[in-house]
């Protein structure tokens, strides 16, 4: 157990901190005419704090992958409350770099990295949620173009995205998993209809996207025709790479402690209520365990080892803990916890109710808790799959 950072990394952390002190006034969250997200992203790329491992010829910084430095960057940007940079799109860009043609790399990666080409993902369909491979959006070749028809759902950011990477069935006769291709096309292509999907929080974070005879040039397939399923799994693998604030759960927990020290009911501080306090402590134990589990996973990754079980359980536990934290915050706030929507006396701008619902959505979305448990049981514990049922059943 060595929880210290070596001098090299301490130096790197200092370097990042210095950069942030000197430059945070240029961040786009600072109201100023000169501050634009793109300028900020450009500055970060120059210093290797964004698009860090993307080759220079494709607009990146071209550094060797270093998980620990990536993490230090994420931690320090979060600490300084400064918006982090991006690597174009943490799903599309690595996929294109790994499986795309040279033309596709030149066409898609540089503008994405500059933030001039934004992406949305067209995977889920109304008929295929947890069962992604059963998707039915189809693309038929007509001359030099794919003609796409069908519907996607849960497409976040579709209103503003410039491009979509999309799974469509190009070989109708091939079995389920084969016969799917990975298409990329502009959201301005005629025949695309984006309809916002309002969720229980009241926001339209997601969209439904309808395709009616959307014509996509033949060559806009990443990877081989019919191998889109394999390409998509590459993307999914990368998705995990995207690193938010690694300490977010802990920060969130600390905010609950603050609430319970600050707020009172009937004149008694919430933290002085032994029953609330015990719930808080139970959560703290689980959050600490997951924090250290995360450090363990990180250490495996640094050494290029497959973390195994410690990684398999992260999503299931993480989403559940976040949901429970929000639930505790709401409960201790009582009636105040019900306030929403800019109401007077609203606490933390309604953060907790929004999280309570959003995090439940995350428990469900992107592979429900049920699917997560299947994966842990089958892939990590080696239990047999359910007997398959064929389409005729």
């Amino acid at each position: 157990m060595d929880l210290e950072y070596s001098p090299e990394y301490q130096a790197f952390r200092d370097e990042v901190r210095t950069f942030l002190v000197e430059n945070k006034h240029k961040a786009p969250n600072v109201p100023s005419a000169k501050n634009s997200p793109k300028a900020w992203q450009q500055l970060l790329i120059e210093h290797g704090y964004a698009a860090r491992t993307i080759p220079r010829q494709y607009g990146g910084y071209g550094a060797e992958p270093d998980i620990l430095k990536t993490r230090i960057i994420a931690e320090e940007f979060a600490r300084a409350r400064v918006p982090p940079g991006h690597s174009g799109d943490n799903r599309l860009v690595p996929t294109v770099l790994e499986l795309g043609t040279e033309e596709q790399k030149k066409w898609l990666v540089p503008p994405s990295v500059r933030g001039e080409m934004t992406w949305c993902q067209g995977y889920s369909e109304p008929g295929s949620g947890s069962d992604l491979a059963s998707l039915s959006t189809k693309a038929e070749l007509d001359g030099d173009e794919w003609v796409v028809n069908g519907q996607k759902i849960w497409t976040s950011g579709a209103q503003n995205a410039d491009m979509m990477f999309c799974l469509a069935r190009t070989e109708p006769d091939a079995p389920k998993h084969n016969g799917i291709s990975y298409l990329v096309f502009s959201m301005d292509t005629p025949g695309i209809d984006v309809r916002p999907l309002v969720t229980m929080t009241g926001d339209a974070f997601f969209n439904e996207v309808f395709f009616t005879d959307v014509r996509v040039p033949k060559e806009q397939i990443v990877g081989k025709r019919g191998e889109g399923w394999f390409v998509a799994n590459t993307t999914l693998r990368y998705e995990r790479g995207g690193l938010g604030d690694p300490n977010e759960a802990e920060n969130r927990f600390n905010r609950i402690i603050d609430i319970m020290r600050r707020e009172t009911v009937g004149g008694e501080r919430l933290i002085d209520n032994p029953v609330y306090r015990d719930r808080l402590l139970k959560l703290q134990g689980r959050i600490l365990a997951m924090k250290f589990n995360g450090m363990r996973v990180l250490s495996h990754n640094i050494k290029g080892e497959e973390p195994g079980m410690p990684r398999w359980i992260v999503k299931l536990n993480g989403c559940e803990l976040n949901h429970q934290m929000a639930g505790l915050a709401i409960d201790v706030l009582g009636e105040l916890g019900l306030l929403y929507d800019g109401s007077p006396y609203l606490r933390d701008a309604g953060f907790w109710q929004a999280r309570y619902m959003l995090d439940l959505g995350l428990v469900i979305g992107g592979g429900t808790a049920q699917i997560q448990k299947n994966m842990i049981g089958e892939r990590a514990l080696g239990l047999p799959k359910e007997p398959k049922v064929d389409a005729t059943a």
Partner: protein
Amino acid sequence: MDFALSEEQRMLQDSIAGYLESGCPLARVREVAEGGAARAEDVWSELANLGVHGVLIAEDYGGVGLGCLEAALIAEALGAAVAPVPYVASAVMAPVALAAAGSDEQKETWLPRMAAGEVVVGVGVSEQIGRRESDGVVARDGALHGKAMFVLDAAEADMLLVASDDGALHLVDPTGSGATRNKLKTIDRTRTVAEIVLDGAGAELLPGSAASREPLRAAIDAGRLVLAADTLGAAQTMLDKAVAYAKERRQFNRVIGSFQAVKHMCAEMAADLEPCRSLVWYAAHAYAAIPEEGRLMACHAKAHLAEVGTFVARKATEVHGGMGITDLLGLHYWFKRIGFNRQLLGAPERVREEAARVQEWV
């Protein structure tokens, strides 16, 4: 010995549920919720014709003079339909308080008009359960000073019933001088709560509440019972919707209800929820018939339904997968209603603590 609803009680519940099905569909709930209206006027007035407003008001005062069980059965139907009406305060807590502590004149002035659906009365008692953001409410020579938070069904209420720290109950005109009504917005847009700032607002004491906290307690008990019943109805609807969805939605070439994981979530919801019905029935029956148990049972009904309701709201949403968190099915109206019922008139931990005191464990 027959632990069951009477024929009349079943008919009452069916008639309310039957009306709401046609008169208060989800589309109507949406209109009210999205339009930010205080209530569905049409539904509220039709319910008056069905005797809902007067369920707990004696016939002498134009009510139908039924009991707490009938009031709970109505609440269950309203919760099942997430009906946007001021039932809890105006049709249950206020009538109970007025009947228990009002002068004959006060009763004659208010009860008939409440039964007829002419006036809505909001109720502010949360300071007497757990003060937050308020230093309480004090009555001084016929006027109220302080602040009443989370006054229930207060938006557009014609009159308010507010409890002062000594447990006395007062009629307050929300539009009168010295009273300021500020709407509070919660996740549940099917009910309203408000902050009432009292700066020497003219108040009319309910004489029967001057010397005894009983009328206040009776109103809170009744309120908790109907909130529990409301959650029962809302949770039952969520379970029913989850089961229906599990029977129709297909994944991996099977309806998802044939997967043990989904099937067991439904079974666990049913196993937790079904006994709640008996608890609510018994608690509502005990309210009048078994006085020595009434308060304890009201506490348990409120706290237990809050816990089970939270569980069902979450699991039923999970069964719906992504659809559950969208506005398309509107499942969230039930989810939020259950969340609202959980916190109002005492969150579970606080209500259980009260149950301990009632049993003299502490």
